[in-house]
């Protein structure tokens, strides 16, 4: 089948035509009836794997409830991009769940879920980033079952999340906090350790994290009744690396292809799977593998979406309104490089050192815990590798990091890579700003075409 972008109704025509799909698959339109109205405004990749991917994403709540009913232990891993979920999935009968994912509910439900209103009522207004929807979800208990245990990182994290998580705890949902130090450059006399990207970091900070993860390991043991041995953790890391490898392959194939082999929207969803596995690590692996197969097949057959002259755009930060990902292609651009704030979850976790040491390295490699300069360095490296022609930094309304990082990243990228940069702000429902976003994307394309 030649790839193209289709409506949700058209994608639903695949229903019943693909054998061997899991039970959670059904017509996507059923979710519209449940309130996911944004689906009617989005365009989707027309492949069978896209159909499965979207079904997987949109059934997380049901699958979590089934897991609860089946007696699984559910751990809410908050403000954690790829560390505690790895530990959690190492433990039998336990699943990690990512409450932060409520970030996208206001968009998907076009605000009809009332989560932002709930947050407003609790004094968490639009001066906070869209993650405030998570607070609403804890209040309504409608979007996910309350986890059995909440584990949240603190320290070098955004103020938005830290403040909201504190409110959640004060509402009677106990949280186990762990300390994520601000990762700094080592001083000349300090012992260092290489992070996942090879850059040196202070060894002492690595030791702090090992201590923290040792504490969490004991907690997990106590709560689940399972011995969280090095052996099972190592197996969990191996599994996680498989997922990371698949995502890596997917990104490389998509970014380095001659034309669009996967729309930006589906790539964003695929990246999200890799950090928390959408509450099912086995299914995540199958889906990512099939996505890799699909895009490789498209490359081999020269099947592209749209024409090959699309401007190659590197995108920084996730978009609160998924529709904006579609717009990129509508205005003659394609996604070639991303930093959706979890690039560290792409790197392989070392398998040749004790597992807690390896996980500590993974946590330290999160560029959100160091500075925007370090983040920009990775972005520049990727831009040069991929050949991205422009950079878009999407600002997240209210986010405590966004007022600072845009300036730093854009200056460094302009200087190091010599490509044009724009910043756009994307709220959860960007409809009123679409003209503005469209003009900015089109102008960016025009500038690239002139250069």
């Amino acid at each position, binding site marked *: 089948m030649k790839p193209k972008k289709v409506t949700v109704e058209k994608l639903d025509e695949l229903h019943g035509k693909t054998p061997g799909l899991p039970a959670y698959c059904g017509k996507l339109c059923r979710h519209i009836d449940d309130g996911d109205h944004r689906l009617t405004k989005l365009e989707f990749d027309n492949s069978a794997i896209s159909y499965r991917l979207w079904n997987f994403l949109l059934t997380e709540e049901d699958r979590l409830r089934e897991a609860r009913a089946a007696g699984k232990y559910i751990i809410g891993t908050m403000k954690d991009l790829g560390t505690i979920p790895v530990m959690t999935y190492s433990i039998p009968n336990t699943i990690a769940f990512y409450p932060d994912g409520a970030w996208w509910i206001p968009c998907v439900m076009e605000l009809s879920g009332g989560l932002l209103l709930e947050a407003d009522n609790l004094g968490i207004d639009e001066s906070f980033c869209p993650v405030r929807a998570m607070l609403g979800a804890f209040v309504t208990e409608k979007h996910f079952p309350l986890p059995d245990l909440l584990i949240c990182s603190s320290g*070098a994290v955004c103020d938005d999340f830290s403040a909201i998580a*504190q*409110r959640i705890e004060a509402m009677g949902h106990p949280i186990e906090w762990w300390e994520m130090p601000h990762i700094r450059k080592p001083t000349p006399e300090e012992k260092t350790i290489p992070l996942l990207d090879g850059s040196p970091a202070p060894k002492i900070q690595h030791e702090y994290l090992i201590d923290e993860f040792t504490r969490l390991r004991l907690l997990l043991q106590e709560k689940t009744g399972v011995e969280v041995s090095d052996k099972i953790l190592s197996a969990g890391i191996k599994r996680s690396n498989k997922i990371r490898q698949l995502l890596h392959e997917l990104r490389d194939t998509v970014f380095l292809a001659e034309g669009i082999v996967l729309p930006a929207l589906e790539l964003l969803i695929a990246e999200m799977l890799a950090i928390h596995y959408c509450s099912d690590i086995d299914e995540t692996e199958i889906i990512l593998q099939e996505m890799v197969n699909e895009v490789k097949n498209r490359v081999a057959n020269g099947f592209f979406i749209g024409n090959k002259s699309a401007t190659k755009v590197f995108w920084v930060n996730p978009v609160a309104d998924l529709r904006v990902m579609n717009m990129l292609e509508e205005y003659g651009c394609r996604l070639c490089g991303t930093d959706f704030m979890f690039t560290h979850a792409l790197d392989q976790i070392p398998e040749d050192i004790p597992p807690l040491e390896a996980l500590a390295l993974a946590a330290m490699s999160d560029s959100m815990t160091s500075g925007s300069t370090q983040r920009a360095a990775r972005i520049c490296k990727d831009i040069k590798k991929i050949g991205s022609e422009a950079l878009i930094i999407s600002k997240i309304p209210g986010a405590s990091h966004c007022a600072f990082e845009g300036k730093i990243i854009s200056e460094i990228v302009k200087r190091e890579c010599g490509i044009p940069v724009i910043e756009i702000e994307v709220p959860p429902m960007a409809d009123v700003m679409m003209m503005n976003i469209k003009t900015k994307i089109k102008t960016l394309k025009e500038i690239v075409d002139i250069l």
Partner: protein
Amino acid sequence: MKNKVLYSSQYIPPEWIKIHGFQPVNMISQNNNAFQESSEGVCPYAELMFKQAELFDGSAVVFTTRCDQMRRISELYSSSGAKLFLMNIPATWQNQTAIGIYKDELKRLSSFLIQTGGTEPDFENLVTLFKNKKRPDPPKVGNEKRIALMGGPAIDFDSGLINLIQEHSAKICLDATEIGELAIPDVNLKKLADDPYSELAIAYFANMPDIAKRPNKQFYEHIDEMVKQRNIDAIIVRTYPWCDIWHAEIPRIKELFKLPLLHFTADVCTSPKNDSRLKTRLKAFFEIL
């Protein structure tokens, strides 16, 4: 000016700077007139600290990671190439790792100060400095309404706020702002002499009640005690725009203390004296009281 070190937070012991041969300068004590306009999305207080650092002509500047805004503003400042120390302040405090981090950061600060031209730490002097440091007595109050002030750090424009409050026969009897009374450490001199790192980590970090800590129950426990001890009648919370840390806690403060509460958001560029809306709100608040 070259022997001065500018610091920005309650977690940085000025005495520690002093025993390395530098004169500590609290950013808060600097002239704030240089700051005319705050930027979108940035806590004006954090931005003010950034401007103060830019204007400072001393040996070095010390920022902390206490909140994300401060952590990130220090990065902007570091791009100027200035001598900067960013002290990592853990948000958690109930575990040994966090206390260990603070102690290590004191040691790292010490090395930094020595490399910046300071001396080896004079620990004897440290004890003397704390001997002379007295916690202020609670203010004496007559028939005035007793107010607890909370929120972002008080800066010199607050004298306008204090005057306005006094005009309504009220007095600030508890300064629970970010760098107010709660930020004054309680140091055990004997322990300080025995193990300065551990005692400073306890007094300046582990026992420091702070709304930004996770969890922040220490803050509420202390305030609750003080509100009761001082018979507080009402609470005024002044937050800075874009400060999530304080902003998120307003409903909780209201709920826990069950006292009349006035919350307002103010930029550092606007003096309360010139804010007619605030004046009206204060008037109405005190009338209701």
